[in-house]
């Protein structure tokens, strides 16, 4: 049995949906009446050697936790789809997008562009190397700003346009998932779970590399050396004040009325 749990077309989170969802009923067509291309979609597109590795697209490495995002593209019968074009786009580790319309004010990472693409191999497998995107606040229907969970935007194109998929991927264990309005617009938990990438210990890589940093952190007397510090107090007023709030309650041992033993 094939089960589908797409959210309603009117993305209930967006105030613009009411002006964008067509009002007339769609005309139903058999999928045969759409086009199937023999080769990969957008055959004119030249894939670069580093298009699947978002950590080497800049002159130096981007800041953030490196993640391998990989998996298999199959059809609804479980058959691997080879030569599917898989594209991703995402925020940097601070939650900022390298897009002229990003109004977050979050810092850009000079070494992170946030877009990648690759084709699935003969077993339907794809693999990206990137950094874990930071969460960011987004505007919702009621005008409220609410935090999105960390997510990577995905676009997948198999052999024909009738299987076209654009979606978002989340990270297992992210506590923001339970308050993310986008994934919670999916009406069934089984559908939501399809979008949550599972931590894959077996394919994770844990190595050390190279010598220790040649970075002076103490001077000749053993005192700590700091890089230059900003002293302008106005700096705090000119940046986005958004921050995730975490509550950290501390309960001290003993009684406040009696000194520690």
């Amino acid at each position, binding site marked *: 049995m*094939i089960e589908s749990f797409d959210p309603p077309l009117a*993305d209930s989170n967006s105030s613009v949906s009411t002006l*964008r969802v067509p009002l007339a009923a*769609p005309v139903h067509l058999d999928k045969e009446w759409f086009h199937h291309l023999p080769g990969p*979609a957008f055959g004119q597109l030249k894939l670069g050697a580093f298009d699947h590795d978002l950590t080497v697209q800049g002159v130096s490495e981007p800041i953030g936790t490196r993640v391998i995002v990989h998996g298999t593209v199959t059809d609804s019968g479980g058959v691997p789809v080879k030569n599917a074009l898989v594209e991703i786009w995402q925020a940097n580790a601070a939650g900022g997008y390298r897009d002229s319309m990003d109004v977050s004010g979050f810092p850009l990472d000079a070494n992170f*562009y946030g877009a990648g693409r690759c084709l699935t191999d003969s077993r339907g497998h794809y693999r990206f190397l990137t950094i874990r995107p930071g969460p960011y606040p987004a505007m919702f229907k009621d005008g409220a700003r609410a935090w999105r969970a960390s997510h990577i935007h995905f*676009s997948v194109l198999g052999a024909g346009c009738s299987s076209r998929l654009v979606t*978002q991927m989340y990270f297992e264990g992210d506590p923001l998932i339970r308050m993310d309005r986008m994934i919670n617009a999916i009406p069934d938990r089984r559908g939501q779970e399809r979008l949550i990438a599972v931590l894959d210990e077996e394919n994770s890589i844990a190595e050390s590399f190279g010598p220790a940093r040649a970075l002076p952190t103490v001077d000749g007397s053993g005192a700590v050396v700091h890089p230059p510090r900003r002293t302008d107090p106005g700096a705090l007023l000119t940046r986005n004040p958004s921050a995730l709030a975490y509550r950290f309650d501390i309960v001290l041992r003993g009684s406040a009325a009696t000194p520690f033993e």
Partner: protein
Amino acid sequence: MILTPAQTCGPLFGFAMTPPDITRTVAEDDPAAVVLEGMVLDGRGDHVDYGAFLELWSREQACRVRTLEGRFRAVVRKPEPVTLPGGNRLAPHLSIFLFTRGLAGPLVTKVYFPDEEQANRSDAILRQVPEARRPLLIAQPTGVERHLRYDIRLQGERESVFFSID
């Protein structure tokens, strides 16, 4: 089997989804090239803020373009007519998949050519569309050779014809 659910493309895709080469399938000065230009308009007649991206498909080609200030511009080869295995004949046309923020999935429409009147009349897809709405699926001549105009209206009196796929 549980299918992977769709999610909106959101507002910030422009930096990623139109790499060089993807926006055309043929050089603009190629004699076979057709330039298709138009607007994507919402229920108020405004162009969609943060833009949309569109994918245009035929049997022999596919390209992806995005709107800037509501306007898209695609350079494609004019498609050939198609006869389906069941014998249905389709006039030259492109399928269009449109993505924009506020929509959880794509809107699917088609664009036919104004110089194919006879083929359009017998086209099996157009015949499923109420006659009064068929002209909405046909691009308009602009007076400039090989340049066509095709607006996509998401709502309103001249709402475009959208399709669902089984």
